[in-house]
């Protein structure tokens, strides 16, 4: 069956959440709830909660980044000091721990920040080709969009629900 996408634009978060709640209660067959997306000008955790719990794995990236940054930073410093610097130390420790701790601390933060940003890009699906998705510039201004991907029959039901909640406009496209 043909798979379609529909984007309904609502005036505010209340209307969008009401439409989402009705959509959930309608229990439409063949509607995968993961294919329901909200597009909004600001973040709104309450409306997002209607979608259910969705994972945010960024913290794992942060942990890995900080650990990698700190450990590789220390190892990098220690190996370079041990291999290239030992001749010039005049009896002082070849790998001085207190100064290396300061540098390891900086590397930990550096790794943490860099990998968090990388994690953010991966988890948020960025960069993204905007032309490959339904979008309306009103979303970046003051309207809230609800996008659903499902089969053609299901999309017709979604359309009815949207209309029951004073949807401002709708866009539809065939995905495959």
């Amino acid at each position, binding site marked *: 069956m043909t798979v379609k996408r529909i984007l309904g634009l609502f005036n505010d978060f209340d209307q969008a959440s009401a439409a989402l709640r009705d959509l959930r209660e309608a229990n439409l067959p063949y509607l995968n709830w993961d294919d329901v997306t909200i597009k909004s000008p600001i973040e709104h955790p309450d409306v997002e909660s209607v979608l259910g719990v969705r994972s945010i794995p960024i913290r794992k990236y942060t942990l890995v980044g900080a650990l990698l940054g700190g450990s590789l930073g220390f190892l990098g410093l220690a190996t370079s000091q041990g291999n290239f610097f030992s001749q010039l130390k005049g009896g002082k420790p070849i790998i001085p721990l207190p100064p290396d701790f300061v540098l390891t601390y900086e590397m930990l933060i550096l790794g943490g920040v860099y990998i968090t940003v990388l994690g953010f890009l991966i988890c948020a699906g960025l*960069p993204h080709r905007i032309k490959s998705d339904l979008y309306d510039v009103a979303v970046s201004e003051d309207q809230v969009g609800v996008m659903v991907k499902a089969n053609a029959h299901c999309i017709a039901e979604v359309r009815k629900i949207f209309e029951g909640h004073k949807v401002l406009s709708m866009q539809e496209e065939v995905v495959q």
Partner: protein
Amino acid sequence: MNTVTQGKEKDIREDIAWAQINRDVLASLEQPRGTYWALFTMAFCMFLIGVACEAYQYDRGLGVSAMNNPDVWGLYIATFIFWIGMSHSGTLLSAILHIIHADWRKPIYRFAEAMTTFSLMTAGLFVAVHLGRVWQIYYALPYPNERWTWPNFQSPLLWDAMAIFTYLSSSILFLYVGAIPDFAICRDNATGWRKTFYEKLSLGWMGTDRQWRNFRVAYLVIACFLIPLAVSVHSIVASDFAMSQQPGWHITSFPPYFVAGALYSGCAAIITLFIMLRYTFRFEEYMTMPILDKTARLTFAIAMVWTYLNLIEYSSVWYGSDAVAKETLIQRATGPYAFWWWSMNFLGSVVPFTLIFKKLRANLTVMMIVSLLLNLGMWLERWMIVTPTFSHGYYPWTWDHTFFPSWVQWGIVFGSFGWFGMLFMLFCKLVPSVSMYEVKEMVFHRKLAKIHVREA
């Protein structure tokens, strides 16, 4: 523009339309007042003066700066510390106030973050400039070479380089990530080259719940990293001094003293730029007087912390057993730099008391003058740390009480303000200096809170 209700002024109007927020901020990118071009031209001219002085110093050698032995750092390192200090403004407003949910920061944090980035870029210049032989800066880089020259890993100067690099790159990422939703707004409203520019910067942001969810966590995590990083950066800069044996520098309280000074000058600079941007970009609706009032009160609180730490520094030297350090302190207060030293104390500790008067806090002209004076005081503080100690060290044969920076040094310092101003003004023309989505959030949540109160 009615922000007054029942006698209490609000940080922002709750009934301001979101579309209006977009229009006002986007207009600042296209049609600023003529003052914008005047300020940009002034900054560019100042920058040219700095370039000319640096070119002269490059051609003739470091001697033209009047720096000698023992006065080897002069204004260059004092100004380097000043700019590093200024960079703490963005961290304070963006990260610290973000974590404690102070939402009044939202209309003003973006330009404070930009200040952080450009201050660090300006500070970095002085590391090269103070060498004199700028072409030999590669000597400082840690790479295997036939000369066997390696940086000293036990020196705070190397930690400094690492900390500043980490801070600069993290600040740029923080600024960029925080601006992605606004770049998307610009993309949706721009035409021509600006559209292509914002299309690339926005990375295809569409405001989906997935993007917002991850954005919220990423922004918070980076903010959490930035706070200890900012503290470490200025603590390490303080260690450049505190870990030496020079009289007047070898003081335990230097790191917190430097961090407080950094937050202080950053806050004062936010007030200066707040007033400038408010007028230049017609941001009266967003950069409101209550927000300025809060920033001024925050500045006063930090000024008092700085004053306390300053007194601690004097007391620990005065009552300590280091006779030479005490002599250096007396030399600062009575010697050839006494005028500058007393000015620093007056500007840093007495002038902020003007901020306790509500009437003065509500006067933009007074606030502009006070913020400039506070930053002058903070700049003098850095100069009074560097030069008097060098000119009156342990050995009398190294004393040089006649040292005064030449016009070349003053020119380069002057030029650095032009460089900073030029970058900042360019930024304001390309990137929304008020965060549109955060202002919308602020308006939305305040409106919601009002409805809840009414219902209760």
